[in-house]
């Protein structure tokens, strides 16, 4: 089954698959940013693969000079009962990824959370604002350069 997914994606976007890896029985495919919406649309509508649920969308801050962030999508197929992980490499100074809300509405809140925690913007998102932190918060907490104990006076706390 994993081979079928790779075959079909190679037929669709042969030059955009950066890497693919299988670890502990899970397939991870790394793509370039520009084809992600097309690939997800294909994976959702293809009758054999039928990845009709977006389970999770998040990001990882690899803290390296090139391709600092990796945006990770977990897809699930109800028909084949299997998961697939898609990854997109994102630069730090151009942290924009096209939104997947047109393919799965579930991406709406997940992309808001990724924007809140990492600062990655999603082009075309209907309502990109912070999910957990207050609106006036200026930093992005899950980046590796944000300290664990927080930045003093970054949150409006009640005075005694």
């Amino acid at each position, binding site marked *: 089954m994993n081979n079928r997914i790779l075959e079909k994606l190679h037929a669709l976007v042969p030059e955009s698959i950066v890497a693919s890896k299988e*670890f*502990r029985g*899970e397939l*991870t495919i790394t793509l370039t940013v520009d084809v992600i919406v097309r690939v997800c649309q294909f994976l959702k509508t293809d009758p054999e693969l039928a990845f*009709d*649920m*977006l*389970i*999770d969308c*998040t990001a*990882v*801050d690899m803290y390296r000079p090139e391709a600092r962030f990796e945006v*990770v999508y*977990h897809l699930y197929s*109800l028909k084949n*009962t*299997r*998961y697939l*992980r898609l990854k997109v490499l994102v630069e730090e100074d151009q942290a924009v990824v096209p939104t997947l809300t047109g393919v*799965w*509405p*579930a991406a*709406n*809140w*997940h992309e808001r*959370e990724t924007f809140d*925690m990492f600062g990655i913007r999603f082009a075309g998102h209907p309502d990109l604002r*912070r*999910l*957990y*932190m*207050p609106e006036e918060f200026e930093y992005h*907490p*899950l980046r590796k350069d*944000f300290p*664990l104990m927080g930045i003093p006076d970054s949150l409006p706390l009640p005075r005694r």
Partner: protein
Amino acid sequence: MSARNSEDSRRSQILAALEDQDTTVVIDDPLENSMILNMGPQHPATHGVLRLLIKLDGETVMAAVPELGYLHRGYEKIAESSTYHEFIPHTDRLDYLSPLSNNVAYVLAVEKLAGIEAPRRAQYIRVLVCEMARVASHLVAIGSMAMDVGALTVLLWTFREREKLLDIYDVLCGARFTTSYTRIGGLQQDWTPQCTAMLRQFLSEFDADVKEVEKLLQNNRIFIDRCENVGHLSREDAIAWGVTGPLLRAAGVPRDLRRDVPYLVYPEFDFKVITFTESDALARFYVRLAEMYESTGILRQALDALPEGPYNAFETKKVLPSKERTYTRMEELIHDFMLINLGIDPPIGEVYQAIESSKGELGFYLVSDGTGHPWRMKIRSPSTCNLSTLPIMLKGGMISDIVAVIGSMDPVMGEADK
């Protein structure tokens, strides 16, 4: 003569001034405007600190915007600085109504990453513990949903059942609520015959007690009127919005991770996946009620099939050794020291492991860089995804339906906000 003239002229001046005055009164018709109501984070019926901004036209909800973040504790950031073992108590606090299933989910993810498998006895006990957590959580869900729509007695009766389960946790794990029972490679301590006796006692009384609760609500005209056709979520919407758990099964999709992507020893048990098709608050209530009976069936089967054997895997560099060996032998002392302070060293890679918790699919995505603490941990919480469908479910209903819908969805803000 002149005085009379001046009085007349003054009177006519006054009359003219009065008639000239603009005396139309503008009344702001409240029925023509819409009102924004804040169902604030502190509210007895929002199941935690959920803030809802509702746009109302009279009593009808036109739009609702949920706002999360009031219980955001930064668990994913904490996980990046703590070892894999240190994070286990934090997982209790996620879905705090069924803490044991969070423990099991996290430890399964770490074991998948590190390539360890817990022994058979530990897997059976984990199944027992997960199903007990499911029953406890559904008891709260049913009780609080009924309480929100007005049937206060139901809450007290379901909490009475839950107290028996919490007593079993007390004997088994040492704590009623924040249990931290599982460990990487196994469990903290063994399942004792006293726990078996308590669980069999609980199971023998459970069916009769829940039947009493059912009798209160089954033909209750008020309960059915408040919950039927309320909060409808179509099947396509449920799949597209990533909804999992009882909400998805009440919409007609038979997705249950215990059956579809099995973990632990679930393939050896016989249970049904409960689905309804109406996808309203009443259907979700019935899904939870029926799932409790299925869970007690699994509990009976697991108790009968519980094997003997070790409850911790024997993997010296990754699993904490037992206390007797740590205090008496040198090698185990060194391993204990290294594991506690520096953590297990799983291979570089990433895994995603999900379980079917009582709210839906609870998944942990772990990225490891080879050191003792994770590089990134993402908690895929079911309550966040379920809450994102609130605007769809509330639109067009009444204010009093909001409470029934939130009760039927049963969000837990501890895991929704992480």
